[in-house]
């Protein structure tokens, strides 16, 4: 599926959403699909394209969320500035993490990223004086675009759509540019790539930094949209797994895959909420059991994800295959 038509259709449909749909629930779903899709796609930049599979991306998401929320509540600054600060901080952290764990591969890298995100979780939940600790931060609602106090969900669709398309374009760049090819070479065989003069270390670190910055932007927007930042949620390993799962489900290393994966997860979540509504902890449990089972089955039977699977189906049919 080298064609961009499915992606153009997907984003065009999303853009039509605010024009055609007035239902707040559907618009909310659309916003969340685009937002979680963008975070999964941002994860994909490091985990899919650079092969740096991380289970600590919640650290960057939380960094963005906290930057926007703290700058807003402490210094009365616009969340847009918070978003920018969060992105800069996450880039810096991405550089540090990428640089420090550069030698690590496979499970070692995964463990290192989990440890990093846990450090953030502990600092955010214990540093009561600055982050108000485990209670979390309610984000004050200040009406206006500059303060992101927006009640109209259609405006939110546009904002997250811009983010989603930006992340998609980054992925597309990695898919088609010289740098992207080099990165793929590093992912497939680092030693061989090094011997050909590919700056493997620099590329990997840069991929993690970019991925971190994009994740932080999503985190900042999420904090403003939801209105509350809970350290045990934004820095949790579960959230990191969610980013990874959406990318794996849709197709790791494919540009549109993470968005499809995010859409699928949200649909599952919504369906279960409607099906078992009102059970509380039981509902979350059942949802997560299905989610965990899906993860196990997915990596066993279709480790490449759904996009390549669908792509193969389409290509097998001679008529439809001509387009891709």
């Amino acid at each position: 599926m080298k064609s961009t038509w499915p992606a153009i259709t997907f984003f065009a449909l999303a853009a039509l959403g605010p024009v055609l749909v007035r239902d707040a629930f559907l618009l909310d779903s659309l916003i969340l699909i685009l937002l979680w899709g963008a975070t999964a796609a941002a994860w994909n930049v490091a985990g899919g394209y650079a092969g740096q599979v991380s289970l600590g991306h919640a650290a960057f998401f939380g960094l963005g969320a906290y930057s926007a929320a703290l700058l807003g509540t402490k210094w009365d600054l616009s969340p847009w500035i918070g978003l920018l600060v969060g992105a800069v901080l996450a880039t810096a952290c991405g550089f540090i993490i990428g640089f420090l764990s550069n030698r690590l591969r496979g499970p070692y890298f995964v463990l290192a990223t989990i440890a990093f995100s846990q450090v953030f979780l502990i600092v955010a939940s214990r540093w009561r004086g600055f982050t108000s600790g485990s209670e979390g931060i309610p984000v004050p609602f200040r009406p206006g675009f500059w303060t992101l106090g927006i009640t109209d969900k259609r405006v939110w669709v546009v904002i997250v759509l811009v983010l989603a398309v930006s992340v998609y374009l980054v992925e597309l760049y990695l898919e088609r540019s010289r740098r992207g090819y080099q990165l793929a070479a590093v992912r497939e065989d680092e030693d061989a790539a090094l011997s050909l003069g590919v700056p493997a270390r620099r590329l990997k670190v840069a991929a993690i930094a970019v991925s971190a910055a994009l994740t932080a932007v999503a985190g900042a927007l999420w904090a403003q949209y939801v209105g509350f930042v809970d350290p045990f949620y934004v820095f949790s390993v579960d959230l990191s797994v969610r980013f990874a799962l959406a990318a794996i489900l849709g197709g790791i290393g494919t540009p549109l895959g993470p968005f499809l994966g995010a859409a699928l997860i949200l649909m599952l979540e919504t369906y279960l909420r409607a099906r078992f509504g009102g059970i509380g902890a039981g509902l979350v449990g059942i949802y997560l059991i299905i989610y965990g089972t899906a993860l196990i089955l997915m990596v066993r039977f279709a480790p490449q994800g759904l996009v390549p699977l669908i792509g193969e189906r389409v290509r097998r049919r001679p008529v439809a295959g001509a387009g891709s």
Partner: protein
Amino acid sequence: MHVIPQLVVSTILLGGIYALIAVGLTLIFGVMRVVNFAHGEFLMLGMYLAFWAFALLRLDPYVTLVLSLPLVFGFGWLSYRMVMRPVIHSSHNVQVFTTVGLSIVLQNVALVLWSADSQFVRTSYYTVVVRIGTAVLNLAQLIAFAVAVLCTAALFAFMRWSYTGKVMRATAQDRAAASLMGIDTGRVFALTWAVGVTCVGVAGVLLAPIYPVYPTAGLQFVLIAFVAVVLGGLGEMAGALIASLIVAAVEVVGSYVIGTAWKEVLYLLLFIGILVVRPAGLLGQRGAEAIGT
């Protein structure tokens, strides 16, 4: 400095328990090259087993301990057959996400079945305290330590002298060669997984009288076990043992000096430090981290 004996005793007691959790984890990694992210959930299941045996059958946790051995081993074997066997030859990433998925499933099965409330195993000797010199310690802690040391020693002896242990070590050293020598590596993996799970399950039963039991109870311990396992050198059983004591010392002394709230940061920083400076750990082979095996 009257606190020093207390700190030393606490370190050793805590280190013994951590060691039992860590050796199971490192054994699985050493032989199968799989990092088991569901390790903490097996610990949690062990804790619940002790809790339910105590609540429903009035069984003392230490009686449960003996009775649970075949049960935990069987559960480990079953989980290998159902979940791990199909991915045993897959890439690291597939294995990582399989065990992460298993961890999510087990955690939430516990949540749905038994709710998120903390449960307690209150034995009649719950408040009994033992004095060694100036140090004071809980009886349950002492028993847990003694049994953990016994189990760890038994595992070491098993790996060192038994035929099966030798077969497992041979598989750990060279899978292909072991296969060529007629070793059924599939069975070795199943056995390794089940033994590793049994170790951590036993640790869970031992911890139940000391710590509250809830669906995510395994998390805090498994993080420590990961630190110990990496510090000791992934796959190195003796390393895991020494590292467990070091981690316990960091935790105990850290809690005393800077307070319990920040102790986790200490061992996480220690963890990151090791990964950066010497990812192979104390006893591991240098360069293992770069091959990713």
